[in-house]
């Protein structure tokens, strides 16, 4: 199976990129292994408890993707800078108590590994 990696650098709601990435990933999952790397402000996307009044919760969209098999990882340095701390993996398949299920904090080296294993890469910066 071919692999698609999506790199995001924006937080949720400030742009449409989180939602666009989610739609792309959802379609791609039918024929690709999908990896998503959350970098810089994108590490906010999987935060628990988002209740936007006028938008779909970006966190819920991404945890749904993880349920469908997408591998979603957040940069550890960016996450720590924003208050998200990596711990032991919990029963929800995350290693951060502030993150939604299935999404983990990992090293930036994982971005390089994802790129190496990819057949296609999409980056969505603002």
């Amino acid at each position: 199976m071919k692999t698609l990696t999506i790199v995001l650098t924006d937080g949720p709601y400030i742009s449409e990129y989180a939602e666009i990435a989610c739609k792309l990933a959802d379609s791609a999952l039918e024929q690709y292994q999908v990896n998503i790397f959350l970098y810089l402000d994108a590490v906010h996307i999987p935060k628990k408890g988002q209740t936007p009044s006028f938008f779909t919760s970006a966190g819920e969209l991404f945890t749904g993707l993880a349920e469908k098999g997408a591998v979603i990882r957040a940069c550890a340095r960016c996450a720590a800078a924003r208050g998200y701390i990596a711990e032991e993996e919990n029963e929800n398949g995350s290693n951060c108590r502030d993150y939604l299920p299935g999404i983990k904090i990992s090293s930036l080296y994982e971005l390089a590994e994802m790129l190496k294993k990819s057949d296609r890469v999409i980056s969505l910066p603002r």
Partner: protein
Amino acid sequence: MKSVFYLLDSAPYGSEKAFGALNAAAVSLAGMRVTLGLYGDGVYLAVAGQESKKLGVPNLSDILYSYGELRVLVHEPSLIERGLFGETFIETLELADEEDFLEEMESFECVVLF
């Protein structure tokens, strides 16, 4: 993929993007052909003599010097448009005109934008 071109078009100290691009390029050096392309406001990163102590952020030119094996390509027309062509640049960087810059980008399997 065996090659990645990181394209930075943001100024070095106005946001975390340049720092993020440099770090991403540095970790990709192991096992991949990597070039960091400076375009638009990203070309300010090429200027020598950067001092960031008062900003309380890392000196990004020090990071460039630390990763001498990282190829950094500077878009010459962007330098000219910003009146920077007469400045002194970090020695390890390469300047490229429009055609060469594009040709270099096209030779990579993927482009990651910052």
